[in-house]
């Protein structure tokens, strides 16, 4: 039973690495920037104190 779990974990690692390679190939990221600036929503100026 215990021997199967590291094997399952190894499969999990392979899946993660596969997704990582896929994200490199498609240059994809859920954190990519995009879209126009929301009009009037941004506040400028220092936040220092």
């Amino acid at each position: 039973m215990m021997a199967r779990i590291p094997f399952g974990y190894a499969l999990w690692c392979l899946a993660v690495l596969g997704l990582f390679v896929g994200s490199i190939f498609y240059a994809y990221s859920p954190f990519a920037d995009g879209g126009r600036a929301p009009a009037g929503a941004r506040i400028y100026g220092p936040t220092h104190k």
Partner: protein
Amino acid sequence: MPPEAAAAPAPAVRALTCPSCGGTVTVRAAGYTVTMACLYCGSLLDVSDPDVRLITEYQQAAAATEIPLGRRGTLRGIEWEAIGYLEKSENGGYPWVEYLLFNPYHGYRWLVSDGRGWSLGEMLTSAPSGASTLRLDNESYEPFFATARAQVDYVLGEFYWRVAVGEEVETADFVRPGWMLSKEANDKEINWTLSELLDPKEMQSAFGVELPGPAWAPLPHQPSPYAGFLGPAARVAIAAALVLALLAMFMGSGNLVFSHTMPVAFDEKNFTSNVGPIRLNRPYQAIDIRTTSPDLENGWIDFDYALVSRETQASYEAYAAAERYSGRDSDGPWTEGSRGAHVKIASVPRGTYDLVVDYSGHRWSQTGAYFDPRWDDNQARHSVLIEVRQASLFAGNFWIALILLGLPLIFAAWRHLSFEKARQEQSDFGPSGLAAMFQGDDE
């Protein structure tokens, strides 16, 4: 010490009559057995006496033991017969049971259970070495239960010594995963027993006992079910993390595809600059756009980008702002923000593109104290350097992958520590190692 059965003649089965109730009692290990309890009335008999002397008479029914005496079962490839039954406790607390097993060629063994599991014990012919931590056959045993008095509460069946209810011994226990080393001492002798934790299914198969239900805590010598996973999994995780780092190193490289300097004024005037052509040769790439405004101080520049394909007119848009402020207050000078701005657009397909940049510079002069005199002249012109890089790796993806690789390992490590904490908390010596770090969690 138990007699060595293998070296002695095979014992004969002997029948005798109980002097208390007249019942016929069979001595299964005749020649070795010294005392036994009558199956019918529970009287304790001295069977070493040819006339079978009555030692103690118990007018109570024999206990309904989980393993009926006389039942045979095979453990570790050897067939054993349960011939004796003891109930023990520490002055009534922490009760446990012990069955004496017998095989004419292999001698005696003990089956011990406190209701949470079964252990098969063999009495040692030599004492372990060491003081606090004991060593036996190149294995270390950590102290678990400190010295205590254990007593016999109930006895049934045959034994190789004169056992009686109320008999007391001094006990101490030492453990390593899967094994327990137990000391029992009285005025005359010190006995050491090495017990191996048995698989409940093995006990069920051998003696037909029921599988134990959920236990309130692990057994003192129960190995963590996660320990066997953590070692191999850690090696897999390290290998996967190395592969991840190599992939990031060799596949995640980027290169500068365009660089351009644009004018800017900090008078809120809008500028538009067309940067290009930008030729992208990979099937898909991330576009990394960085700007640097060396003269920016106490102000900000808004950038609106539109990366437009010359072939399809598809547009990829993004927004960034560079803000930089500085001043002085009672704590001294301070700065905030950056003169640079950075955006990254994902999954841009191969092709030729123009980057249309709409931008405007602004001053921040809320109090006037931070006003930069250079900006007083609306005709002043400053510059913004824009650099466009072709890339494929997002740092966020790398960190997400690293976290996903480690999550199962962290979960297993947490479960392992919780198990070890629950196990070691029963010890008279308290948790040790990493488990001790979590000792105060529930307090």
